[in-house]
């Protein structure tokens, strides 16, 4: 078996722009996240009505994963696909929104559909439900994008035989400030981009 790992593809969503493998996919200037992500949904024809029930963090991660995974042929079972994501703000955007809904004790109507997103790893769940991934998953919290941390965790999953492929990256959202950078890691070397910490760091930093 080929023990080397490769980056099959990567997707970035930031500043109202979407890129797949460094190529522009969609842009919509002068709109807030809500308008932008809705326009992206229509443009890319996701056709997944549950999308509109998701919180902003999940919409962001789901959209990035859709665009990336559509471009990739996954040749392992869903039970062998792992997901390792990281972010800085956890689920704080939704936590704050939920807190707003419960702070007035005279008008106390907690929203169950907001509450269910007050955990950061729900974004992983949404991606896994859509693609029937049931492999190992983790959501790591760090102040900034830490390539070494993502790389080390992902490598350990492959070394331990826990995954055959892995969706990894950064999905962060707080108060309309957002950034998603996803990578699909596999043993297939079609694209011949080696999976290295420095490589994902340079792809992440190469955004203008």
């Amino acid at each position, binding site marked *: 078996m080929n023990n080397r790992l490769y980056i099959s593809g990567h997707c970035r969503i930031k500043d109202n722009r979407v890129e797949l493998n460094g190529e522009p996919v969609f842009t919509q200037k002068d709109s807030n996240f809500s308008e932008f992500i809705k326009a992206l949904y229509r443009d890319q024809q996701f056709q997944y*009505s549950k*999308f*509109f*029930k998701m919180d902003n963090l999940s919409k962001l991660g789901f959209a990035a994963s859709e665009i990336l995974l559509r471009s990739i042929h996954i040749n392992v079972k869903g039970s062998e696909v792992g997901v390792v994501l990281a972010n800085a703000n956890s689920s704080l955007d939704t936590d704050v929104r939920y807190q707003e809904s419960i702070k007035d004790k005279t008008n106390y*109507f*907690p*929203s*169950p*559909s907001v509450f*269910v997103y007050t955990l950061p790893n729900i974004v992983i769940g949404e991606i896994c439900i859509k693609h029937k991934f049931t492999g190992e998953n983790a959501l790591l919290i760090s102040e900034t994008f830490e390539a070494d941390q993502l790389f080390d965790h992902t490598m350990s999953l492959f070394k331990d035989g826990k995954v055959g492929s892995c969706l990894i990256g950064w999905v962060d959202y707080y108060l309309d400030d957002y950034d998603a950078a996803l990578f699909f890691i596999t043993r297939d070397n079609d694209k011949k981009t080696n999976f290295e910490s420095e490589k994902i760091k340079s792809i992440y930093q190469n955004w203008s």
Partner: protein
Amino acid sequence: MEELINKLKAEIIEVLNLEDISPGDIDAESPLFGEGGLGLDSIDALELIVLLEKNYEIKIENPQDGKTIFFSIKSMAEYITEHQAA
């Protein structure tokens, strides 16, 4: 009743974020849950309970009644009419 049904349709679309659905797409007698209707899930059911409390000041005392009350928009409207008149 027709007015209440239309109001409920609009409220449900808003509170459940049914982005791709307009009030005209919803058959008042079709099931809200499961196949052949809006395909709502358990979290949506909780939101409907909150909607009844918040917008109509109706609290469902017996959880067992939920299936009947939330069968369709029409059954919800009938329940609201009955309990607001009481």
